[in-house]
C-alpha cells in the first residue's frame, strides 16, 4: 500500500528532474558556446565583430557582418517564397480539394519532409543553380554563377514547404464550419469567406507554423552550403553569393585550427546563430500572444 504511494511520488519527481535537465540544456549550450567564444572578446569588441565585414582569420580579422546578412537573407527569401505558396496549397487542400485528393497529397508532402537535406543540395546544384544562372539572373544582370542567396532561398523554401503546409492545413481544418456558414449565409462567396474569416481566424496558427519553419531554415546547413556560393561578402542583391553562419561552421571547423582565435570565432558564429534563433522565437512568441489576445475565442 505504502509502496505504491512512494512509487507514485518517485515517478513524479524523476519526471520533473528529467524535464528540468532537458530544458537546462538550452542554457548549458548557450553558456558553453559563450565560454568557448570568450577569447575572441579579449581582442575584439562585440561591435566590431558585428559590423566588421572583413573575414581574414590569418590576419586576425573577424567580421561577422557578411555571415549574419547571409543567414538572414537566405532565410527571408525562403519564407517569402514559401509562405504564399504554402498558404494557397493548404487552403486548397482543406477547403476545395475532394477527400480523395487530400488523402494522396498530404502523405506525399510528408515524404518531401523526409528527404535528407543533402539530396536537396544536389537537386539545387543540378536544377535550381542552372535555372538561376541561365534564365533568371540574365534578366537582371550580365553574369551570375547561379550559386546565389536566391538559389539557397529557393532550395530552402522547398525544404520548409511540407512542414508549413501540414501545420497550416491542420490549423485551417480546426476552423468551425459554423463560422464559415455564418459568413456564407451573409452572401459572402467562398473566397471572401476564406480571405476575411478563415485566414484571419487562423492567423495565430499560421504565425506559429511560420516560426517553426523559419527556425528550421535558420539552422539548415548542408543543402544551403551546397548552393549559395559561400563567399564571405554581405550580399547586396539576390544574385550575389552568400555565406550563412551554419555553412561557415560546417565548412571550417576542424581545419586550420592552428590559426589563433579561429576556433573561438567559429564558436562565436554558433553563439550568434543560437542568439538569432532565440530572439526570433522570443519576438514571434510576443507577436503570437498579441494576436491571440486580440481575437481568441
Amino acid at each position, binding site marked *: 500500500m505504502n509502496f505504491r504511494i512512494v512509487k507514485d511520488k518517485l515517478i513524479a519527481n524523476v519526471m520533473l528532474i528529467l524535464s528540468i535537465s532537458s530544458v537546462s540544456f538550452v542554457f548549458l549550450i548557450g553558456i558553453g558556446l559563450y565560454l568557448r567564444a570568450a577569447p575572441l572578446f579579449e581582442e575584439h569588441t562585440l561591435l566590431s565583430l558585428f559590423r566588421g565585414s572583413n573575414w581574414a582569420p590569418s590576419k586576425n580579422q573577424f567580421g561577422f557582418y557578411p555571415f549574419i546578412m547571409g543567414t538572414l537573407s537566405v532565410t527571408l527569401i525562403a519564407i517569402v517564397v514559401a509562405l504564399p505558396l504554402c498558404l494557397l496549397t493548404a487552403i486548397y487542400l482543406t477547403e476545395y480539394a475532394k477527400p480523395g485528393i487530400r488523402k494522396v497529397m498530404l502523405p506525399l508532402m510528408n515524404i518531401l519532409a523526409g528527404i535528407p537535406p543533402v539530396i536537396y543540395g544536389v537537386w539545387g546544384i543540378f536544377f535550381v543553380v542552372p535555372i538561376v544562372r541561365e534564365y533568371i539572373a540574365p534578366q537582371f544582370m550580365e553574369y551570375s554563377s547561379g550559386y546565389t542567396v536566391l538559389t539557397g532561398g529557393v532550395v530552402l523554401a522547398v525544404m520548409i514547404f511540407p512542414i508549413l503546409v501540414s501545420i497550416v492545413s491542420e490549423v485551417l481544418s480546426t476552423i468551425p464550419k459554423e463560422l464559415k456558414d455564418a459568413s456564407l*449565409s451573409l452572401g*459572402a462567396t467562398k473566397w471572401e469567406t476564406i480571405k476575411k474569416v478563415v485566414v484571419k481566424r487562423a492567423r495565430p496558427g499560421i504565425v506559429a507554423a511560420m516560426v517553426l519553419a523559419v527556425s528550421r531554415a535558420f539552422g539548415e546547413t548542408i543543402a544551403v552550403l551546397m548552393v549559395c556560393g559561400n563567399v564571405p561578402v554581405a550580399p547586396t542583391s539576390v544574385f550575389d553569393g552568400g555565406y550563412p553562419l551554419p555553412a561557415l561552421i560546417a565548412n571550417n571547423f576542424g581545419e586550420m585550427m592552428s590559426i589563433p582565435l579561429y576556433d573561438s570565432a567559429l564558436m562565436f558564429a554558433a553563439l550568434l546563430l543560437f542568439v538569432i534563433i532565440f530572439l526570433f522565437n522570443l519576438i514571434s512568441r510576443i507577436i503570437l500572444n498579441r494576436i491571440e489576445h486580440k481575437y481568441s475565442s
Partner: protein
Amino acid sequence: MTQHPLIRVKDLNVHIDGHHILKNINISIPDKSVTSIIGPSGCGKTTLLKTFNRLLDDTANVTVSGSVLVDDEDIYAPEAEVTHIRKKMGLLSQRPYPLPMSIYDNVAYGPRIHGTRDKSTLDSIVEKQLKDTGLWDEVKDRLHGPANRLSIGQQQRLCLARGLAVKPEIILGDESTSALDPVSTHTIEDLFVRLKAQYTIVLVTHILRQARRISDYIVFVYMGEIVEFGPTDEVLLHPKEELTRQYVKGFIS
C-alpha cells in the same frame, strides 16, 4: 411583395451519403410570422432549414431534388446565384459565431461585401441594427473592441444584428437559443416576436414550450417527412395525426 408566400417548397428530396434525409417535402411558409419546425433529433429539421439558403452545398455527398422557391425564384435552378439567395436570409445558428473582428466590423461585414463603402452609411447601418437587437446601449462604447469579449447572449444578438444588416426578408434560426442562459433566451425570443412584423421567420427548435411561446405556425417533422403543419394551437392542442399527438404528449422524442 409577391402574391405567393415567400418560401415555397415543392417535392423536395434530400439524400446525404445515400441516406434519404428529407422525403417529398411540400410546404409554403406563411409570410411575416414565426414558423417553428419541431421534431425529434435527427428527423431532418435542421437539414430542411439549411435547404432554404443552400447551406448544404458545401457538405459532401448531398443530392437535392425538387425545388425551393424563394420570391418565386427556384434557388436550386442551375442559373440561381447562391450569394444573392443567401443575402435574402439571416441565419442564426445554435451557438453564436462572431467573426474574428470587432463588433462594428461584424455588423458591417455583410454590407461591405455587398459593396457599401461609405463610412457614414455603414455607421448608420451598424447603429440601427444594434439598436434593433437591443445591443446598442451595451456596446456603444466598445464598438471597435473584439466581438468575442461579449457575453454569449450578447454575441447571439450581435449575430442577429449582423444577419439583419444585409436587409434580408427571412430569418432562419437553427436552435438559436440552445446554448443560451434563460435570460438571454428570453431576450432572443422577444426579438423574434418583435421582428416578425418585418420578417418571415423560420425556427428549428426541439423545445416544445418555446415553439408554443413564440410561433404562429408549427411544422412537425418525423423521419424526414412532414407529419403535420398548421397554426400553433391547432397542432399542439388538437393534433390531427396520431404521431403528432404522441410527440406533443412526450411519448416519442
